[in-house]
């Protein structure tokens, strides 16, 4: 297991970090990093969502809430307690993971639509809490001044870019690890029939809680650097449905229950979003995303990955099993 983790996480992680550094050195336009940041964040959120929604079939509409929980945790720690960035990231993951535990307990009691609606409820209640807590900036939010750049970066955004690159790599790698293991298989079994999974010896309760906690913790981690990226962290934009909707739309575009689906989806959707926002306006943006979601649900339920593989093949297929 340890060997597997080091092969799948640490070594590729170092490679990704090096590539990121190289890009930061070679590219000088600031705008490039902004676009990349947005897309990478979408990849991280989509991969995180996929762990719960794609594999176990529990649709979480509250992405914004868990993401913002991470963002607020990190800014509070960084601003008031001046902790190390790494500590802030871990704390963000922990807080969102604990909130995920709450959702996990909900998933024991209810499923399907009831579960999805409850995630909206949790996320909205979080928003209300932030709005009503002056310590968390209330409705006005936090104004954040980015620290000066430090070597080897020539601009702070380059550092943020590297950070989100690693985070999104981590999220994708975790979901890939899960997918390739018995856990991923059990998640899919839960999606297809909880009863049959349970009578086949799958501890569905434990696994559902594992899925919600990991998924939500990753969303929180993805939110940790966000305050420095956006520089004005306020509840409406950070916790609204828009941000989260893009993430889960990305999963639908890319393909559910497949670790690289979110990457494909986020790149396509992120590219589309950037061009629409630049060319028209943000309302049209929402319109386009809504249409994309509908089109994929109706015409390509398994997303681009499904289209590429052909409708019939299961998304999760190991070479060994194919024989």
């Amino acid at each position, binding site marked *: 297991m340890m060997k597997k983790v080091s092969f799948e996480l640490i070594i590729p992680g170092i490679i990704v970090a090096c590539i990121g550094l190289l890009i930061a050195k070679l590219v000088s336009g600031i705008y490039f990093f902004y676009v990349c940041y947005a897309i990478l964040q979408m990849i991280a959120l989509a991969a995180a969502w996929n762990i719960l929604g794609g594999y176990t079939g529990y649709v979480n509409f509250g992405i914004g809430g868990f993401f913002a929980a991470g963002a607020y945790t990190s800014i509070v720690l960084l601003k008031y307690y001046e902790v190390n960035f790494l500590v802030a990231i871990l704390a963000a993951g922990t807080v969102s993971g604990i909130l995920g535990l709450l959702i996990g307990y909900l998933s024991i009691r209810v499923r399907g*639509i009831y579960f999805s609606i*409850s995630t909206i*409820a949790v996320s909205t209640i979080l928003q209300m809490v932030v709005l009503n807590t002056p310590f968390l900036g209330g409705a006005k939010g936090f104004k954040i001044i980015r620290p000066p750049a430090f070597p080897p970066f020539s601009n702070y955004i380059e550092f943020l870019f590297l950070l989100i690159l690693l985070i999104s790599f981590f999220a994708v790698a975790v979901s890939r690890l899960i997918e390739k293991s018995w856990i991923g298989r059990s998640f899919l079994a839960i999606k297809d029939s909880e009863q049959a999974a349970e009578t086949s010896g799958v501890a569905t309760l434990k696994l559902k809680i594992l899925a919600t906690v990991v998924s939500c913790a990753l969303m929180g981690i993805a939110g940790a650097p966000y305050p420095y990226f956006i520089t004005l962290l306020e509840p409406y934009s950070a916790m609204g449905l828009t941000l989260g909707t893009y993430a889960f739309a990305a999963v639908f575009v890319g393909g559910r229950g497949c670790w690289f689906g979110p990457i494909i989806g986020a790149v396509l959707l992120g590219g589309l979003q950037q061009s629409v926002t630049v060319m028209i306006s943000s309302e049209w943006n929402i319109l386009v995303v*809504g249409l994309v979601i509908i089109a994929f*649900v109706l015409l390509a*339920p398994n997303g681009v990955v499904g289209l590429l593989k052909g409708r019939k093949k299961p998304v999760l297929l190991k070479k060994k099993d194919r024989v």
Partner: protein
Amino acid sequence: MIDVILNTIVSGILIGGFYAACAIGLSISFGMLRIPNIAHPGFIIAGGFLTYYFNKTFGLDPLLAGLLIIPIFFAFGFLLYRGYNRFFESKRDEREGQMSALVLFFGVLMIIEALLSVTFGVDFRTVTTPWSSIVLHFGSVGICLRMAVPFLCSVLMVCILYLYFSKTYLGLVIQAVAQDSMAATLIGSDPRFAKSIAFGISFSTAAYAGTLFVCLVPVEPSLGMQFLGRVFSIAILGGLGSPLGTAVAGLIVGITESLTTAYIGSSWTLAVSFILLLIIIAVKPTGLFRR
């Protein structure tokens, strides 16, 4: 002191009646037909904006304009069910179909919001009528017609639907279909037709709830998302599919919100229905009033 409480409760009741009108359509679509139409509040807002448009352009009385848009919404819902049936109800697994439908309706909700924002802008819109500003006094309780008229219309709507589903032939068929499609086929009625009618009715109630909405308060496209929690908690609390249960649940939420606004602060009002929703879901997902 007593006066304040009394006034608060009265306005809670008036608002609660209106909430029931908002939720009853969902109670039909989600409760009876098992269609997870989370775009329902979006259609309510759309109904509100159409009423606003008819009122502004042709000077129609909003309550009358609302009646005019009902057929449009009914036809839309009727046809939409046909599509829904083809795409989702023929899936091998009801749960899988429902989840896809849920995501689809989420997309629809976004589109409605975006379309309204693009067409009407993101400003608050409302209609004013000659009766809007009249206030009736009963002792120390003041009742504003702006709130009382939507309330009365809502009560009327709930009563009509109650009678429709419990007394008319088609209404009873819809109920039977809701319980068991096969059984309905046996008594010789087409379940698809009955369900189309029911979905059309659900949309009609959304339209008229929208009409009442613009009469009551200014409306803005993004309110749809906010109403999501309200309509769902009321529909579930009311036992899904029961008009009278929905009415009672609407009153409960209305009064609770009203008291919250008065004694805790308006910034928490929106949280009320969501907290209620979580409690109901955690404790008793079948609602207080089972059919």
